[in-house]
């Protein structure tokens, strides 16, 4: 039942968060870009798998993942 919050405007789609997520719940949105012109990632957790480990937030260079609730 955990969740992460992503500020897509801060995301630069470096994909480091996706590389550390143990459940593979962070996906690149390939269709849109944010106001800065960057692609951004989305949190996709249909089966409530997120552990709330915060590894993604800890690794995010831009604090685009700005909150983790566990």
């Amino acid at each position, binding site marked *: 039942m955990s969740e*992460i919050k992503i500020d897509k405007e801060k995301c630069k*789609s470096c994909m480091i968060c996706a590389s550390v997520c143990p459940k593979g719940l962070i996906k690149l949105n390939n269709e849109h870009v944010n106001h800065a012109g960057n692609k951004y990632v989305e949190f996709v957790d249909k089966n409530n798998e997120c552990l*709330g480990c915060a590894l993604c*937030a*800890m690794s995010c*260079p*831009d*604090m685009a993942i700005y*909150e983790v609730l*566990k």
Partner: protein
Amino acid sequence: MEQTLQQVFKRPEPYKKNYNYPFCAGCGHGVVLRLIAEVLEELKIHTKTIATASVGCSINLDKFYNLDIVGADHGRAPCVATGVKRSKPDKIVFTYQGDGDAATIGFNELMHTALRGENITTICVNNTNFGMTGGQASATSILGQVTATTKNGRDPKISGYPAKISEMISNCDGAAFVARVAIFSPQSIIKAKAAIKKAFECQIKGLGFAFVEVIAACPTGWKLKPVQALEYIKNEVTKVHRLGIFKDFTESMA
């Protein structure tokens, strides 16, 4: 169920509300800066901190930190911080520098600040190149590293050997805490934060100069994708710039 959720991660307090990180995708600066802010908040010292920014990508502190900040010229941040600390000894003073700044143009200043045992903290982000100017070789570039000025890889016959700054600083008697950490995995980030925290505790206890060298990625300068850059740190850079705590007086002299 929503109400039972605990906040396990948030943006740290010392940031501006509308902060702007002017860094490239995957840049290691962002993580290091966040760790510093987290440590300042945890130690409850951010309201009495004066930061010294330096030349390079590290100059941008005022774009996102809600701290008192003075900018220093190329390599001179330890001197500026010395002036700040000597005139305001009760404040927490740190320099935020890159390897081009601290280990290349400002190495003399860094060494002498360590030798004086100046009671300040220096966080040096070592990404083994001059990031802001386009990825030229710096003093810490590793042998074989391809940069804008070592296009066939750093050759010691042409451009000498990499400076291992933590080892050299730890030889200065005035240095009380010296560590080299890296940002390439969640575990390494936890270790980096612990070292940064000790470096500030060292200053709070008045033990002398505290220095943390953080090996961090410069995907743009290295011409690697962000995730590949982390692999490069793990597999290449840390083979030359070995991680570890080189000196720690915080335990013995606490």
